[in-house]
């Protein structure tokens, strides 16, 4: 075991490491101010694993309907040698009729054993090497590739949907498959951004691979491909070469602080304190946001803590923003009712006036 791995193992305190995956790593960038989430992910755990192993509660389970839909859509695209995916690229004119070189990494080493996983990594790296060496046998589509992403000296494997490149492109782009329906302008932007950030995790892993081999990491562009489902059917809708500049930047920012985060976590915990202890998890500062429930299984605990300490965020993002000057719900109520200390600064005075006006509006609406 490498020293870095030993350090993380000590922090986990006997809990077995789990595969965080692209989605888990992406979640760190969604809430960069949450030390608790960053500590858990960097240590090689997930909030769901912590809920199950540390708090002995049920983890975050995906709805069976959503899971079935996701699996069926992915299977539809990736089965039969990715023929549906290939067709989508051919129809968009992104691959020529002779660019039909496809490799499924999962076919090479199926299963969840350590050997199979290690082989999937080495096979993916071998295929990348072919491409970067200009070998004409390099695939145009690599299905289910597995790449290591290095965070604080430890490899976190990331399993992606696919990598794509035409024969003329110097390296691959990462593609993600999402089973939510493409509703044009009405598709939830948060979902699209999350999908792009998930693909950006793959791009980052690809850049690290190129860099380790002495190449220019910028060769892997900040563009990703996204496949959504056409409404009411299982037909794919391809959105190729989407710019993921900001998603990649937010991810790089979030992960670049990982070594410092690890030092901070070790400082925050008392000697011998580990993430296997519920009290130590509670001790790590969190940053509850209303969107946490979308990606973090610990959201209920963090919300309970926010409620207990009267944080305005429990009233929603808008209220949190507007009541920021007060800092807590009880202080905001004091300002509204004219109790407690008088406004301590201009921001509090402005908030007090806004709350008074809002109270009058509410009174008029409620009492006529």
């Amino acid at each position, binding site marked *: 075991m490498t020293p870095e791995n030993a350090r993380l193992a000590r922090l986990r305190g006997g809990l077995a490491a789990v595969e965080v995956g692209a989605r888990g790593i992406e979640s760190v960038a969604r809430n960069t101010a949450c030390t608790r989430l960053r500590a858990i992910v960097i240590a090689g755990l997930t909030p769901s694993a912590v809920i199950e192993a540390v708090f002995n509660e049920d983890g975050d389970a995906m709805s069976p309907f959503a899971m079935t839909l996701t699996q069926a859509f992915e299977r539809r695209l990736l*089965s039969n040698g990715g*023929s549906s995916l290939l067709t989508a690229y051919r129809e968009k004119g992104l691959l020529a009729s002779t660019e*039909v070189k496809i490799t499924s990494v999962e*076919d090479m*080493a199926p299963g969840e054993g350590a050997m199979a996983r290690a*082989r999937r990594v080495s096979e993916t790296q071998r295929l990348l090497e072919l491409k970067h060496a200009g070998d004409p046998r390099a695939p145009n589509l690599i299905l289910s590739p597995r790449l290591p992403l290095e965070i604080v000296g430890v490899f976190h494997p990331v399993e992606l949907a696919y990598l794509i490149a035409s024969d003329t492109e110097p390296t691959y782009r990462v593609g993600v498959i999402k089973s939510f329906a493409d509703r044009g302008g009405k598709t939830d932007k948060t979902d699209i951004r999350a999908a792009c950030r998930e693909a950006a995790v793959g791009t980052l892993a690809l850049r690290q691979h190129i860099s380790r081999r002495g190449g220019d990491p910028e060769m892997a562009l900040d563009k990703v491909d996204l496949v959504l489902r056409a409404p009411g059917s299982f037909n794919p809708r391809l959105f190729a070469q989407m710019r993921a500049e900001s998603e990649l930047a937010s991810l790089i920012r979030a992960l670049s602080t990982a070594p410092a985060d690890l030092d901070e976590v070790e400082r925050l915990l008392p000697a011998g304190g580990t993430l296997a202890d519920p009290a130590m998890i509670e001790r790590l500062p969190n940053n509850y946001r209303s969107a946490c429930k979308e990606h973090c299984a610990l959201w209920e605990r963090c919300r309970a803590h926010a409620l207990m300490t009267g944080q305005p965020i429990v009233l929603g993002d808008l209220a949190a923003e507007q009541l920021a000057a007060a800092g807590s719900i009880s202080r905001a109520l004091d300002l509204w009712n004219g109790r407690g200390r008088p406004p301590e600064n201009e921001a509090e005075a402005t908030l007090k006036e806004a709350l008074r006006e809002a109270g009058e509006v509410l009174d008029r609406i409620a009492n006529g």
Partner: protein
Amino acid sequence: MECYLGDMSRTVPIAAQLARNVQRQQEAFAAMAKALAAGDAASRERAQAKIAELTADYQRLTEALRFNELEARDIATPRGRKPGKPLRELALDALDDLGVPAAPALIADLTAALTGDRPSPSRFASLRRDEENAARRNIAARPAWVVPAINAQQLTAIPRLLTSSSWELERRIVGARSIRTDNLRIAISLSGRLAQLREAGAHEAKLVERLLFPFARSVPGAVQHGQPIDAARTIEAARVELAPIEAADLEERREAAAKLAGAGPQVRLWGRPVLIDTAAAERAVR
């Protein structure tokens, strides 16, 4: 399948191929004797290489002949499809129908379409391991084994794609373009089967059509939206699609087959052992 078999399989009987091989070996040994007498080192090297190549080919052909004889003795008639057949028999039947390496799910679906009995695809992993273990004990125990396809670049097994050991080596190899060419061949093969079943008015035609649909849909011009699959049209479209990539695919497979030809029977059937980068695995989170 005809276009595939036309290119990929020899039409010359194995016994005749063996006779030709023996003749060539005699010529190679004669050349060796001549080179030794003349003290010509270059000619001797060439003759040695030729002898090694022909010996490997001889070994392959004698095994193929033995398998054929065993098959002829044990299974005099084509394998009938009936419920209760062992999984390996069902797999070999389906593979013979498809004619190309196939994933367990496809084998199970084809078996279900033609027999109404769908084996669980998850059983194929243990079948593959059982077959390998049994063959290690006695490779001649069965006329054909369910074996994995072999990767053309590394010559290692692709466990998720199954083939029959009775196929020629180049047919069991998967190159860079093979997934696509094999899919097109499956489309051609299933279209042919669909046409036969429709002609006979068999109810299985619907099931085969459903199985064919994802393959046909990926071939430009093979299917018309909202229309039943036209088998002849699909075959034609798949052949057009196959034409520009078939030669390159075949060349890559043949090159890989040549590299494997000199290996032992276990390696020829189950591929080279896989090497894992333990240094990288050491750095993985655990």
